[in-house]
């Protein structure tokens, strides 16, 4: 089967600094793929190139191909609006807008003035159900999203992506500001979401990668050193660097 995202000979420079060096891999549909590696290895850069959020940085340059749905999204003429609707992103810190819960979820629909058979209420309900928040929040949709706990806020940030119907969810260390219990519950949510979405997660937390992901990539100094089934990476890695990292010899 064709991978959902195919990365071929990807190089990326911030000015003169090369942050990604000849990355090649394929990310499978409806699987969780995690990317691990020490700080500054380029894992967030790799994640952010998948929805071209890196474009915000001046002096960025890329070469190679990233194929999503038969299109090379690195080409200059790429429709970034369509791409970002298809590839949603959850950030490190929960960052709901300081608006009501309802407004947070409908934000994407409003900017795309999307028409849909479902009414707004149905969309809100479905989105909140997908992130398992509906029962807790159904009676206070009009209260501020900032009154929620951090875990709920992060769930809401996932729910906010869903109305525009993405296929791929990118998560940039989504649990780094959460406590272990909340982290566990977000991981359960990821299992739930995997049924419908392709998920790529960047994480500092190796145990998390081992727990949640189907495939794991290990990055070091801009190179994707090893990419394989998670089980294989954590039990019998092929490369010496991978083994050193997962056994805690550095990083």
């Amino acid at each position: 089967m064709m991978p959902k995202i195919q990365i071929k000979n990807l190089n990326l420079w911030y000015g003169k600094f090369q942050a990604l060096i000849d990355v090649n891999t394929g990310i499978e549909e409806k699987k969780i793929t995690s990317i691990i590696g020490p700080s500054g290895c380029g894992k967030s850069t790799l994640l952010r190139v998948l929805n071209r959020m890196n474009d915000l940085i001046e002096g960025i340059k890329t070469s190679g191909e990233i194929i999503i749905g038969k299109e090379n999204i690195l080409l200059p003429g790429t429709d970034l609006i369509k791409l970002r609707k298809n590839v949603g992103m959850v950030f490190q810190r929960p960052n709901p807008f300081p608006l009501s819960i309802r407004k947070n979820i409908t934000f994407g629909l409003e900017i795309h003035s999307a028409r849909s058979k479902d009414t707004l209420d149905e969309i809100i309900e479905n989105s909140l159900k997908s992130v398992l928040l509906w029962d807790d929040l159904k009676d206070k949709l009009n209260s501020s999203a900032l009154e929620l706990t951090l875990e709920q806020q992060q769930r809401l940030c996932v729910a906010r992506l869903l109305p525009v119907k993405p296929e791929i969810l990118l998560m940039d260390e989504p649990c780094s500001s959460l406590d272990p219990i909340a982290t566990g519950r977000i991981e359960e949510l990821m299992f739930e979401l995997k049924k419908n979405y392709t998920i790529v997660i960047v994480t500092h937390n190796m145990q998390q990668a081992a727990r949640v992901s189907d495939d794991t990539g290990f990055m070091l100094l801009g190179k994707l050193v090893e990419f394989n089934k998670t089980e294989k990476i954590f039990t019998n890695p092929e490369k010496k660097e991978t083994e050193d990292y997962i056994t805690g010899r550095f990083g």
Partner: protein
Amino acid sequence: MNSRVSQKIAFTVLFLSALVTILPVLLIIVVIVKNGISAISWEFLTAAPTNGMRSGGIFPAIVGTFYLALGATAISLPLGVMGGIYLSEYSKDNMFTRILKLGIVNLAGVPSIVYGLFGLSLFVIYLKFGVSLISGCLTLAIMELPSIITATQAALHSVPRSFREVSLSLGATKWQTIRHSVLPHALPGIITGAVLSNARITGETAPILFTVAAFYLPHLPSSVLDQVMALPYHLYVISTQIPGISKSTTYGTALVLIVFTLSLNLFGIILRTYLRRQKKW
């Protein structure tokens, strides 16, 4: 010298220096209120001047100043906000941007009488608006522009970067991002900045001297091409050109002007406090 003594001296000197800044404000208010309060009456506030401006009221001047403040802000607020958005969100750091920013700094530093002469030559003479409300509003608007642009930039800057990132990552265009997830959160700061800069230009005399202010005009303007009386200029006129005018009339006019600007300031400060309390990030 004993360190305890030097500490005492330093404290005293610093405290007195700080005190000096508040003293003029208090003195101005005390002197003006003391000399002017007796002139304030219903007639003074609602009637036109009579008897060579020695008696009657200052109503046309109050209305004139109100129109000028309103008109100047109506012009400079949209322009300044849009310019501020461009500079803060769109412009890249290049020669053109640096020249623009230099222009704003310099505009803020131009003496007010120069604005007056500029308004006279451009609006009154060249564009043939004549000495009129519209010329005065435009002149004051240009003067107000730098502070509104600066306030806009500062307010946009204070909106967290994550708001922009989230919005863009949801597929919004840059303009949608600014319109829906940046501007609404910057609005309180922008409005406050506008009110405060408005309070500042309300008391200006030089920019309106040649562009709008009427020496004596006992009725209200009927179009933007009419002249108006204005409080600062009226004050200048009655204190220098009208012999034998009672002291209380002059100070009464000053009192009205100062109450006008101080209440605008106060309104701005209350607005800022209120809106800041609404912000939660």
